[in-house]
């Protein structure tokens, strides 16, 4: 197990380095930040001065090293707009994003697992049809449209829940539903497929032959063995949730990292964009590490690979 943990941590460090490189490449190779920051009638001298001030006149490899060094020490520069270091600005909004993504995750799992299990147990029956109809429609619905429609129906027409901001469970419900539905849809489908696969195996037949109750076979034997792909998807999808949080936060004025990053794009506040993107990506990488380690605990065969 120690070797497994060590390998996974090493891999994660490599991926984190790759993520930093990708952020650098995306932000430096896709254009000239100095040119987009200045007004259209700025002179060449102003451009040169700004490029020097931002360190953009240095060779690319030097910029890259400086960026890596900054990422390691948590220094992403100073926000142009807030006149504060960019990283603390991002970090103080991270709990809000994690709260939203966590709530969406819990909601999705609570909905999708029973739905997927029921669909598998009653395969081909009405429960299965309804569950899978929910799943395909859920997968085709964009987050932002779902959010707008929820606001329209639940908040504006029915007046049941507030439309925006953070604080209190009532403000968390709509954003969590918005963010969680898409995930619940794919998780329900996968749960159904994984359950059906395990149902066909011999130990399930044996469990039934022993005279165990059907639900003990389903929950005790089948679900436990169908768990690895399900947990894989939960781990992988958490990243998608962080991405979806960007949209959901924008719709519901949720004060998280994603909304900050999008707003910063519009005011060309690159240090904050950079720090926000990096922090969210790193959060995702860290969660993947946790999931990988959890596998090792769940399935001893994986440790030996």
């Amino acid at each position, binding site marked *: 197990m120690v070797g497994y943990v060590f390998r996974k941590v090493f891999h994660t460090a490599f991926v984190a380095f790759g993520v930093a490189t*990708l952020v650098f490449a995306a932000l430096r190779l896709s254009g000239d930040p100095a040119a987009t920051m200045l007004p259209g009638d700025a002179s060449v001298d102003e451009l040169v001065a700004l490029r020097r001030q931002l360190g953009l006149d240095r060779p690319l490899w030097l910029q890259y090293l400086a960026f890596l060094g900054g990422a390691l020490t948590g220094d992403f520069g100073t926000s142009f707009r807030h006149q504060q270091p960019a990283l603390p600005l991002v970090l103080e909004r991270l709990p809000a994003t994690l709260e939203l993504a966590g709530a969406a995750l819990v909601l999705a799992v609570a909905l999708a697992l029973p739905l997927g299990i029921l669909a598998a147990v009653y395969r081909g029956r009405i429960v299965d049809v309804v569950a899978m109809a929910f799943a395909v429609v859920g997968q085709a619905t964009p987050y932002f*449209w779902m959010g707008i429609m929820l606001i329209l129906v639940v908040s504006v027409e029915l007046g049941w829940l507030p439309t925006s901001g953070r604080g209190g469970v009532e403000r968390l419900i709509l954003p969590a539903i918005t963010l969680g539905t898409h995930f619940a849809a794919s998780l329900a489908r996968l749960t159904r497929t994984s359950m059906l696969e395990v149902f066909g195996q011999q130990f399930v037949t044996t469990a039934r032959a022993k005279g165990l109750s059907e639900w003990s076979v389903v929950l005790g034997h089948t679900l436990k063995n169908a768990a690895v792909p399900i947990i894989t998807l939960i781990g992988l999808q958490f990243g998608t949730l962080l991405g979806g949080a960007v949209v959901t936060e924008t719709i519901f004025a949720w004060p998280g990292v994603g909304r900050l990053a999008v707003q910063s*794009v519009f005011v060309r506040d690159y240090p904050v964009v950079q720090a926000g993107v990096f922090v969210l990506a790193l959060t995702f990488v860290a969660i993947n590490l946790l999931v990988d380690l959890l596998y090792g605990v769940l399935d001893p065969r994986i440790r030996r690979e």
Partner: protein
Amino acid sequence: MSEAVALAVPAPARRRNVPWTVVLPAIPVLLAVLLAGLAPWIAPHSPISGDLALRLKPPVWQEAGNADRLLGTDLLGRDLLSRLIWGARVSLLIALAATLIGSVAGSIVGLVAGFYRGTADTVLTKLIDVQLAFPFVLLAIAVVAVAGPSIGVLVVVLAIGAWVGHARIVRGLVLSLRERDYVQAALALGAGTPRILVRHLVPEVLSTIIVLATFDVGRIIILESTLSFLGLGVQPPTPSWGSDLRDAAVYVRQAWWTAAFPGFAIMLVVLAINLLGDGLRDWLDPRTVRARGNERT
């Protein structure tokens, strides 16, 4: 008995009878493509210039509706139906272009890496790991932040999002295919690498690529509309389902229809594309055919 033979024989028969699981979802998809293609001729009004006297008119079945504006109008008095039809053109074109670029590039990389293995393959696998470890929307935000929002940038960014899946799956398939007897036989007969790749491996992985690409079109339509909704994609006044929803979100209380219809259009088209992908996978992909064969025995 070799699997390749078993698969090769029934293929023509299978291909002649297109199952209803493919035909049915293909109908709305083709309809959307047709509407998009014929936009200049069938859209009843201009998507760009509106009639300010007819601002925020509800759909025709509501009391205040206007018979000439079937789905109502937006804040600038533009006909919603016309914007939807023109928006289909923009959204579908971007999605198709990005899918095409992403899947061709990804498949070539996957073919080469899977066939040659070695250092190129190791580097590629790491690169895929890194990109998959990165929520795609964030990458798009970073690129658009510097490059600025435009349709060209959008297509490139979305293609970058699509290539990984193709590279990973094609590589995996080729890794196992290259050990098959028929590939080894071709090698032994002195066939060159390009010939083996094009004549023997591409046909084997093509159906998988088509299925993947179908799902990608649906995924990319959602991604494009998401980026446009955030203001990082298609810019006004160009009609696009996502950017129309961005405007509509602001005055959704006064005019529900401006937000409801573009989103509904996205949902229907993506739903049909996803179902088409499901149908195509069951029909074309030899791996599922084999899996189903096992299920029966």
